[in-house]
């Protein structure tokens, strides 16, 4: 019934006493089963939001519904007080920043690692990002306000943050990165097909998510740093088994070959 392969090591941090049970007219069972189920659902939803088809636009309706579900769980967890407890526990931990995937994070003991309290913001942005992927560029395509993502979707603006990212798990192939300086962003229609290797490789799936992100996002430092996260290969192994729709391109950890295949594919389409 639950996500296949998800190791539910995360134990309910708030075995709060009947706190929840006494609240309000709606009696919500705060049993650990319910909490676990809810957590599992949250994890599953976040994974679904991130898994997007590299080459085809993801279904906006589905993304909106999943995002609303995430919001709903979040709200309920905030009301329970579970949310604060979780984020505090995660904040106390030392961790390599950038885990968007809550599964991995929350499956570890709370003292260990996590995405810190960016968890909440990350989710917000994941939600927002899922929306943003379909932002239309109504204006002149060359206007600087809109993004012109290259086939590999690397965002020029992210470049600064890429270097700052604390992601230490750089065994993934970073070949999807495309470094385009800020100044050139407005002028480029097609990115060059350079394949470079910056320090922390952005996940192509993430890049795709944010391909149309409004520049105003850059003002939110924490958001940005959070967004630079490159989820580890680990969770994506489960993800492949979880979702039949997982695009092969997401397995960045495998090799650069997949990305080159991507390139070939795109060249085929264009020509």
């Amino acid at each position, binding site marked *: 019934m639950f996500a296949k392969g998800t190791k539910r090591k995360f134990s309910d941090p708030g075995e709060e006493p009947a706190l929840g049970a006494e609240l309000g007219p709606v009696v919500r069972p705060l049993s650990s089963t319910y909490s676990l189920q809810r957590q599992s659902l949250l994890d599953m939803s976040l994974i679904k939001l991130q898994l997007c088809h590299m080459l085809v636009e993801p*279904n906006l309706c589905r993304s909106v519904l999943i995002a609303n579900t995430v919001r709903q769980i979040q709200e309920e967890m905030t009301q329970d007080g579970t949310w604060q407890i979780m984020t505090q526990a995660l904040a106390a931990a030392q961790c390599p920043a950038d885990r968007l995937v809550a599964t991995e994070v929350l499956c570890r003991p709370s003292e260990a690692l996590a995405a810190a309290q960016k968890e909440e913001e990350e989710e917000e942005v994941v939600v*927002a990002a899922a929306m943003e992927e379909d932002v239309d560029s109504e204006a002149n395509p060359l206007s600087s306000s809109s993004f012109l993502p290259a086939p590999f979707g690397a965002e020029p603006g992210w470049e600064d943050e890429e270097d700052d990212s604390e992601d230490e798990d750089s065994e993934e192939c970073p070949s999807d990165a495309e470094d385009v300086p800020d100044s050139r962003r407005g002028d480029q*229609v097609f990115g060059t097909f350079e394949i470079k290797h910056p320090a922390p490789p952005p996940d192509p799936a993430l890049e795709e998510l944010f391909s149309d992100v409004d520049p105003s996002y850059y003002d939110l430092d924490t958001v940005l740093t959070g967004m630079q996260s490159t989820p580890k290969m680990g969770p994506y192994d489960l993800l492949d088994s979880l979702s039949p729709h997982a695009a092969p391109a997401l397995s960045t950890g495998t090799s650069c070959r997949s990305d080159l295949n991507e390139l070939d594919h795109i060249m085929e389409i264009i020509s």
Partner: protein
Amino acid sequence: MGEDAESPKINHTFLRDYVTEADVISTVEFNQTGDLLATGDKGGRVVIFQREIDSKGESEEVGDIGDSGEYNVYSTFQSHEPDFDYLKSLEIEEKINKIRWLPQQNAAHFLLSTNDKTVKLWKVSERDKRPEGYNLKDEEGRLKDISTITSLQVPVLKPTDLMVEVRPRRVFSNGHTYHVNSISVNSDGETYLSADDLRINMWHLGITDRSFNIVDIKPANMEDLTEVITAAEFHPQHCHLFVYSSSKGTLRLCDMRASALCDKHTKLFEEPEDPGSRSFFSEIISSVSDVKFSHSGRYLLTRDYLTAKVWDLHMDKGPVETYQVHEYLRSKLCSLYENDCIFDKFECVWNSSDSVIMTGAYNNFFRMFDRETGRGVTLEAWRESSKPRAVLRTRRVYTGGKRRRGDMGVDSLDFTKKILHMAWHPSENIIAIAATNNLYIFQDRVNPETQ
């Protein structure tokens, strides 16, 4: 339904046994007379079937099969090709999302077909004569040597084998940023609407470089987006009315006379939520996947994940009828969320007299509900049980109580076999069911004596 049903099955894949993705049927639609049936598939192709008129003519004898012909392939053409959005570096699928026929005005037939981004108008015409006897060209079309021409002749039209020509007449492009989910031809015969996730545009059939935006629910900040448009349709008689459904389970009836931009609805149809059955999936399963006006124009039929509902246009407080399509899935919602089945968009249809509604389910099952009695029946679209003239067997999903032979357990249902698309003949009891890559056409032949 009738006891005696002829069920000719038309296998879309012909000789192939395996299902190629491109052959999956994505839309089915009868034209206004029911003589033509169009299907669109994921590969961007459109196949038009035509009903054969039995040469026996009017059936003088009772019970004669004179007037019910089979549907045979009439024409096939490639409607849309895969495309690439260079701005977003994303592919545009060629899958045909919807086909709608225009009312016939002359000998030719017109239909609109759409993929995610572009709507096209196609002209389907027949040619069964060709001119012969040109003076300057020979039979192959090559220019004749003028010196060999000694006399003049008048070309005559000679009958030839029937040729069906399909030509694109209009291409309505660049109207949509998001994915087009619906098109609907207006009763005025001149305009149609196309709806994507966030906007609805109205086009004139003759003008391709302009369209009017009549609904726009895109928020200023995309982070605030919580609701999308899932389906839209014009009223069958009133050319100023249309309805659109949302992912939150609401229906909005809009009157174009009220203002140019119909963001503000004229009527909002929403069923108050039952607090007792609230779960994390409540919103997802309330999302309306299809909305259809009744032929009378008085009612609306909607489909959400577990139910089909009939609404009275005069009452916006809630549906007047609710039919459980597969309530046994309510306890499986988490699994269905995990495997994404919960996002499947089922269509729903009315019969010609608005007395029966039909919708699809899993395991190649589809359901019909008689509105007068409120009773529903489950039928199956399956090759093995569909020999020509075989009676469609009713099926049952075991949900408790006494188990009968042939009952299916919920866990043995095949969730990859979904009946999402279907159509009902406009005047007769003939239904077209798309089961993945197969098209089934079922006819109900009621003995006139029992009517």
